[in-house]
C-alpha cells in the first residue's frame, strides 16, 4: 500500500505504462473519433467547394470536394440582385431578435415562479407545462386552430409565437434560478422589495450564463426555422432566410427537371452552384459564430439531460 502511494506520488497516472492492448485501444480511439469528425465535415466541404466551382464543370463532372474549376459566378449572381436575400435576412434577424427577447423574458419569469418553493402552485404549474410534451393536438388541429381561430395565416406572429416557449428551456432555466441562494431573495423581501424588483435587480443579474444559454437555444431555433414559414406564410417578402433558401432549392430543382425533360442543356442555368452558394450564405453566420458560443450550448445540453 505504502509502495503504491509512493509510486503514485512519483508518476502522474497517465504515465502508467501502457500494455499493447491499451495502445491498440488508443489507436482505434483516436482513429474513430478523427474519422467521425471528418465525416461530419465532408458535407460542409462539399457545399463550399460546389459553391465556388464553375457551373459548366459541375454539369460535366458533377460535384467534388475540391473545386475543379474555380469560379465565383454563383456569388456574383446572388450579390448582383441581393434584395431578396437581404430582405430574407431582415425577416430572420427580426423574428430571431424579437422571439429570443420575448422568449427569454417569459422563460425567466416563469422559471422564477416555479423555482419559488414557497409558491403553492409551483408543481401544478410545472405539470401544466410539462404535459404538453406528453400530449398535443397534432399537426392537423394545430394548423386549423392557428389559421381559423388565431388568424395566423401570413402573419409574422406565426413565425414568433410557436417557438417562444419551450418546457425544455424552462427546466434548464429553473436549474440556473435554483442556483441563486434563496436567502438572498428572502432578505430582499424583508427589506421590503417586491417580487418584480427582486427578479429584475437581484435574480436576473445573477443569471447571465443561464440567459446566454437559453437565449442562444432560442435564437438557433428561430434562425433555423422554415417549418412555420412553410405552413403559414404565403407572401414571399415575409419569408425568413431558411425558407427562402428552401423555396429557391425547389424552384431550381423544378427548373432543372423541366429543362432535362425538354432536352435543354441544364448547364445554361447556373442552378447547381447557385443553390450551394445560397446555402453557404444562409449557414455562414452560424458556422462562424458557433465555436465562440459552443460552451453555452454544451452547458445547456448537459443541464437539460439531467431530468427536471
Amino acid at each position, binding site marked *: 500500500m505504502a509502495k*503504491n502511494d509512493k509510486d503514485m506520488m512519483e508518476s502522474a497516472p497517465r504515465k*502508467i505504462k501502457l500494455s499493447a*492492448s*491499451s495502445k491498440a485501444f488508443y489507436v482505434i480511439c*483516436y482513429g474513430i*473519433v*478523427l474519422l*467521425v*469528425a471528418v465525416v*461530419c*465535415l465532408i*458535407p460542409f466541404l*462539399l*457545399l463550399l467547394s460546389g459553391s465556388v466551382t464553375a457551373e459548366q464543370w459541375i454539369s460535366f*463532372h*458533377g460535384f*467534388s470536394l475540391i473545386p475543379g474549376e474555380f469560379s465565383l459566378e454563383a456569388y456574383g449572381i446572388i450579390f448582383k440582385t441581393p434584395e431578396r436575400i437581404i430582405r430574407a435576412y431582415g425577416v430572420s434577424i427580426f423574428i430571431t431578435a424579437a422571439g429570443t427577447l420575448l422568449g427569454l*423574458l417569459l422563460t425567466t*419569469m*416563469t422559471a*422564477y415562479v*416555479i423555482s419559488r418553493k414557497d409558491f*403553492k402552485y409551483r408543481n401544478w*404549474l410545472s405539470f401544466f407545462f410539462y404535459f404538453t410534451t406528453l*400530449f*398535443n*393536438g*397534432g*399537426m*392537423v*388541429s394545430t394548423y*386549423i386552430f392557428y389559421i*381559423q*381561430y388565431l388568424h395566423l395565416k401570413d402573419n409574422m406572429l406565426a413565425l414568433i*409565437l410557436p417557438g417562444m416557449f419551450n418546457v425544455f428551456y424552462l427546466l434548464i432555466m429553473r436549474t440556473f434560478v435554483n442556483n441563486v441562494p434563496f436567502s438572498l431573495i428572502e432578505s430582499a423581501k424583508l427589506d421590503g422589495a*417586491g*417580487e*418584480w424588483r427582486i427578479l429584475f435587480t437581484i435574480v436576473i443579474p445573477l443569471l447571465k450564463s443561464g440567459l446566454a444559454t437559453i437565449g442562444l437555444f432560442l435564437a438557433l431555433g428561430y434562425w*433555423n*426555422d*422554415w*417549418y412555420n414559414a412553410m405552413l403559414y406564410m404565403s407572401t414571399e417578402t415575409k419569408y425568413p432566410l*431558411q425558407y427562402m*433558401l*428552401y423555396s429557391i432549392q425547389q424552384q431550381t*430543382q423544378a427548373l432543372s427537371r423541366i429543362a*432535362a425533360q425538354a432536352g435543354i442543356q441544364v448547364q445554361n442555368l447556373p442552378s*447547381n452552384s447557385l*443553390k450551394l452558394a445560397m446555402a453557404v450564405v*444562409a*449557414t455562414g453566420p*452560424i*458556422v462562424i459564430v*458557433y465555436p465562440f458560443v*459552443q460552451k453555452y*450550448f*454544451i452547458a445547456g*445540453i448537459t443541464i437539460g*439531460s439531467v*431530468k427536471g
Partner: protein
Amino acid sequence: MKKEGFFDEFKKNKALFAMAAPAFILVLVMSYFPMSGLILAFKEYRYNLGVFGSPFNGLQNFGYLFSSGTGWLITRNTILYNLLNLITSQLLAVIIAIFITEIHAKYFKKVTQTVILLPYFISWVVVGVFVFSIFNYETGLINSVIQTFGGEKVNFYMMPMAWPIIICAFNAWKWTGYNSVIYIAAVTGVDGEINEAAAIDGATIFQRIRYITLPSIRPTLVTMILLQVGRILRGDFEMFYQIVGNNGQLFNATDVIDTYVFRSLITNPDIGMTAAATFYQSVLCFAIIMIVNTIVKKIDEDYALF
C-alpha cells in the same frame, strides 16, 4: 375551501401570478386549445362550420385510413425508422463519448468535439441541400466519383431501399454530437478519482470502461431510450421532409405519419383521414409513454421520467 385557498394565495402572491401569466396564456392558447381539435378525427370537417360545428361521422375516418392500407404502412415505417435511429444514434454517441473522454490530447479533443457537434446547428433545409448534392443523378458527389472511375451511375432517387440507410446516416450525423455531449457529462460526473484509483490498482483500460464508465452512463442511457420510446410514433417531420422531398417513388419506403399528414393537409381538402391519423398518433404516444413510465417506475423509481 379550495377556492378560498386559491384566492388567498392569489392575493398573497399577485406578482408571481402575473409573472407566470404570459407563458401560461401562451401555452394555453398555442398548445392546449388545439388539443380540442383532435375531435376532428370523428367529424366530417367543413371549413365554414368550423371545428365544433362540423357534423360527426363516427369512426369512418379511421376506417378509410386503415382499410386503404396507408395507416399500417406509415405506422410501420414510423416505428421502424425510430427504432433504427434510436439504436444507431445512441450507440454511436456512447462510443464517441467514451472515446472522447479517453483522449488526453487537449487540442485534438477540443477540435474534434467541436466538429462533431457542428451538424446539430445546421437547419434541415441545408441538410436537404447536402443530401441532394451527394445523391442526385446528374451531378451528385457519389455519381461523380463513380464516373471518374468509369463506373455506371446510380439513380438513388429510384432506389427506395437505399433511403432507410441514407436517412439513418443523416440522423446519426445530425445527433451524434448532441447526444455524446450528454454522455460525456455523465462520464465526467464520476470520472476523475475513481478512474485514477482503478488505474493505479492495475485495472486495464477495458476494465475501467466496463466497470466504471459504462455503469456511469447507464442511467442517462435509460432516460434517453425512454424519451425516444415515448416518441416512437412521431416521425421527425423536418428530417424526412427535407431528405426525401417530393419524390413519390420513395414514399412507400420513407413515408412516416408526419409526412403523410402534412402532404394530405396541403393537397387534400378532405382532412378526415388526416385528422384520424394525428388523433391515433397523439393518443397512442401518450398511452405508450404512460405505460412505459409506469413499468419503469415499478422496476426502479430512479429511472422513471416523472
